[in-house]
């Protein structure tokens, strides 16, 4: 009987996963690129400073973050910066409509089933991870306000300077 209880308790504990923290290697994933239709992995961007942004069309702050991230990416792309946006809309058409309104030049990957946010244990929407050239998570931003952009830009530049 005790074994049954222990098994039950272990089962309950198994549903909770430890969240990622700064210094961890960003878990790799492979998702379809909205523009090209090809599968892309995070590993492909190793050697660049990556701003991994999880967003959805129904998320209010994303209306502000996408255009601002697009500006930053355009400014710093030559220095080795890339924004990777993972869209979490269940219906991809919602993402397309949103991007017609707020077009971006950086890769938008699609995860309608929400497998990657599960891996990254997102605490809120939007959440973004600043990943250094070695593929380690250096900053985690939850939520977004336009005034956050100044700090993000500074962080990106400081990690672009590091090896």
């Amino acid at each position, binding site marked *: *009987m*005790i074994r*049954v*209880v222990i*098994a*039950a*308790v272990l*089962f*309950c504990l198994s*549903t909770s996963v430890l969240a990622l923290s700064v210094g961890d290697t960003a878990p790799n994933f492979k998702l379809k690129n909205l523009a090209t239709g090809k599968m892309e992995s995070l590993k492909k961007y190793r050697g660049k400073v990556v701003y991994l942004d*999880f967003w*959805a069309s*129904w*998320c*209010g*702050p994303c209306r502000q973050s996408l255009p601002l991230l697009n500006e930053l990416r355009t400014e710093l792309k030559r220095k080795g910066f890339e924004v990777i946006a993972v869209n*979490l*809309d*269940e219906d991809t058409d919602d993402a397309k409509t949103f991007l017609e309104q707020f077009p971006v030049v950086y890769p938008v990957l699609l995860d309608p089933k*929400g497998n990657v*946010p*599960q891996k990254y244990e*997102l*605490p*809120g*929407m*939007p*959440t973004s991870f600043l990943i250094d050239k070695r593929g380690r998570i250096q900053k985690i931003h939850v*939520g*977004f*306000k336009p005034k956050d952009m100044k700090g993000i830009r500074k962080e990106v530049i400081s990690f672009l300077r590091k090896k």
Partner: protein
Amino acid sequence: MLNTHKIFLIALVSLLLGACSTVKPWERAHLAKPNMQGSPIAQKAALDRHIYFSKEGASGGGEAAGGGCGCN
């Protein structure tokens, strides 16, 4: 005998707890729709909350800001 029953009950309830899950932040698409809000006018709702909390002499405990999204 009674003890065995109790342990069995605890085990059963613990197993059922595994079925409880919270809605994850990225699963709130439907909750974020305008027609899922408690009040159709966000500004009026904010004002009502303000009055309610000042009358109650307490703050917090209401729904999450912006309805279901939990963005800010």
